[in-house]
């Protein structure tokens, strides 16, 4: 088929594909994966796939690194529209509706036959499944999933006269602690901010922590109606804006996401909110003792989930689909899930993975790894709708307008809701 594959060794490739065609019933799978956590994760994925291939000689998996999450969904959809999709891919859980609308993926319910498989499907944490199911069907299998948590600098807490082992547990405490933790030099310049909630790029994600705590859901599970103008959403945004505008415990303006861990390490901020995906990074690089806690509560505790799911693509043979399912079952099995979680900091998506000896040893050595899992009890689906890219960018623009003071939280959210309605009304 690919007669010119890899310039220069075309002949070799052709000879190989001939000999491959000779072996009976070999299944070729192409697997796209994004890497949102640097080179080490790519190595782990490749190690896992080759381990699987060694145990299953009749299946050949070609694991293809596909860039960021955005690049991966673009690549997979382009390939699908071009008539040559991968068999399976890890893509953001929030892209589920997009993939369904493009008719690119199949529901797992259509592939699953045995009771054993049904039990397997039920063993994932419900919080992760919220983003993986719609209309009563399961379209994604949680794999590299995360949730935001709060990291705090214990030394800074001590210096401010706070108990280093008690993080703020409520919105009110976050402001109170933040005021004590905000340090100014003689000329009045802030040298250490109390809190850092990054707002660049995808502010909606951390903001969804605040809305969930304020007991409001941003979008329905059919993905066709948003709730941006709800008074509780506006109240949450007002709180976020007030952190810098009124209480002066957070730097004003848009706060860079990527530079956040570094700012935390250098003591520019005593508390930061960011993904659990950063856990290993913080553990390796923080030059002081730090703690990890759930996000503070208001009306309730809460946080969104995030990260990527496995999807199986429609346009492949039945044998390929069955092999893909088998691979996904294998890689999400307790032992593999534990290995993946330990290597990256992503939250192992099943309770039984936390029962393995490796995971227990890891958690005993490093208890903060448990915080994210425990928070899952309060977690909700990440904002996800049809036309997801457009809706989230409308929402992000609204948040940015309020954060930078261009419009009031109320105006910004009403405006965002109107724009979202205009797009989503076709899907109701």
């Amino acid at each position, binding site marked *: *088929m*690919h*007669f*010119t*594959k*890899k*310039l220069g060794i075309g002949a070799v490739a052709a000879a190989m594909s001939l000999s491959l065609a000779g072996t009976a019933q070999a299944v070729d799978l*192409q697997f796209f994966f994004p*890497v*949102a*956590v*640097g*080179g080490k994760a*790519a190595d782990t994925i490749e190690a896992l796939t080759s381990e699987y291939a060694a145990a299953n000689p009749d299946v050949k998996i*070609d694991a*293809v*690194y*596909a*860039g*960021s999450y955005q*690049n991966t969904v*673009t*690549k997979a959809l*382009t*390939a699908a*529209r*071009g*008539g*040559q999709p991968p068999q399976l891919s890890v893509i953001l859980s929030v892209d589920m509706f997009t993939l369904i609308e493009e008719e690119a993926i199949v529901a797992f319910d259509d592939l699953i036959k045995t009771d054993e498989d049904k039990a397997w499907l039920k063993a994932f944490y419900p919080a992760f499944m919220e983003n993986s199911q719609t209309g009563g069907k399961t379209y994604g299998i949680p794999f590299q999933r*995360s949730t935001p948590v709060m990291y705090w600098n214990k030394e800074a807490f001590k210096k401010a006269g706070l108990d280093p082992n008690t993080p703020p547990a409520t919105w009110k405490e976050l402001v109170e602690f933040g005021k004590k933790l905000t340090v100014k030099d003689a000329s009045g310049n802030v040298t250490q901010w109390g809190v850092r909630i990054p707002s660049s*790029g995808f502010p909606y994600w951390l903001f969804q922590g605040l809305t969930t705590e304020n007991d409001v859901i941003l979008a329905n599970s059919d993905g066709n109606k948003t709730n941006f103008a709800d008074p509780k959403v506006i109240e949450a945004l007002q709180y976020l804006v007030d952190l810098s505008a009124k209480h002066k415990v957070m730097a004003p303006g848009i706060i860079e*996401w*990527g*530079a*956040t*861990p*570094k700012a935390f390490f*250098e003591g520019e901020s005593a508390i930061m909110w*960011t*993904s659990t*995906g*950063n856990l*290993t*990074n913080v553990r390796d690089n923080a030059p002081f003792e730090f703690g990890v806690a759930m996000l503070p509560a208001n009306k309730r505790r809460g946080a969104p989930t995030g990260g990527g799911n496995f999807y199986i693509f429609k346009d492949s043979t039945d044998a390929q689909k069955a092999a893909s399912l088998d691979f996904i079952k294998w890689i999400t099995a307790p032992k593999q899930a534990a290995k993946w979680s330990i290597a990256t900091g992503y939250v192992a998506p099943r309770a039984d993975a936390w029962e393995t000896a490796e995971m227990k040893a890891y958690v005993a050595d490093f208890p903060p790894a448990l915080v994210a899992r425990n928070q899952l009890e309060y977690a909700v689906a990440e904002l996800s709708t049809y036309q997801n890219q457009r809706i989230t960018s409308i929402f992000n623009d609204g948040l940015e307008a309020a954060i930078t003071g261009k419009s009031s939280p109320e105006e910004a959210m009403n405006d965002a809701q109107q724009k979202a309605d205009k797009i989503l009304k076709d899907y109701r």
Partner: protein
Amino acid sequence: MSAARAFRFDYDRALSTTAAWALALVWFAPLIYAVWTAFHPTEFSTRFVLTAPLTLENFAAAWNAAPFARYFLNTVLLVTSILIGQFVLCTLAAFAFARFEFRGRDTVFVLVLLQLLVMPDILIVENYRTMRFLGLVDTILAIGLPYMASGFGIFLLRQTFKTIPKELDDAARVEGAGFFTILMKVYVPLAKPTYLAYGLVSVSHHWNNFLWPLIITNSVETRPVTVGLSVFASTDQGIDWAVITAATLMTSGPLLIAFLLFQRQFVQSFMRAGIK
């Protein structure tokens, strides 16, 4: 009075020199930062201490994070094959548009110009289909093929060919030269500055292209350096500026060095070709 004139002259000159320096600094600042960060340990990424220890570790880390040697080879193969394809196709097309009379010439030329208005990213799916039809998915050729019949190149060369005096053409014809000889002996040599300028634009554009190569290729054997570079853009984990700047310097290094070496020729040919 002569003193006053001299003073005014100096004033003017000082102003343009300052402006030139200011612009150069603005342009240069990211590069200076990259050099600083790449050669110092991570702790000094945002702290400027003159005595900070120098290190090459960031480069080693970056080099080991992806198979860059192979990626460099791929990129060189890619830009060379595109450049050759563009030169051949654009020269022939431009010559036809500039010197031949045929029915529908202007219509066809307008169609070629329309290509300039279309963002290549819009065509990704169509291009993918074509490559799949040709069985070229995951090859270096597939990355380059959509760019070879460049509308910009045809336009630029046609304009250059049009400025070449018809008398030279006629003289060659009187001597008995055929079309191809005239093209190769008269037009191409006189358009050298345009080729050089266009070549530079083309090479630097395709050296830096990212999305299409990422989509159409799957394996280490075909992917260019930009795809390797993207391994470092991991916002989830916090960005390690030291390694990312080292990798950036490494991947853009060959182009920077080439530009510095051939600076004079480039600038001159840009002036002559009218690309500014």
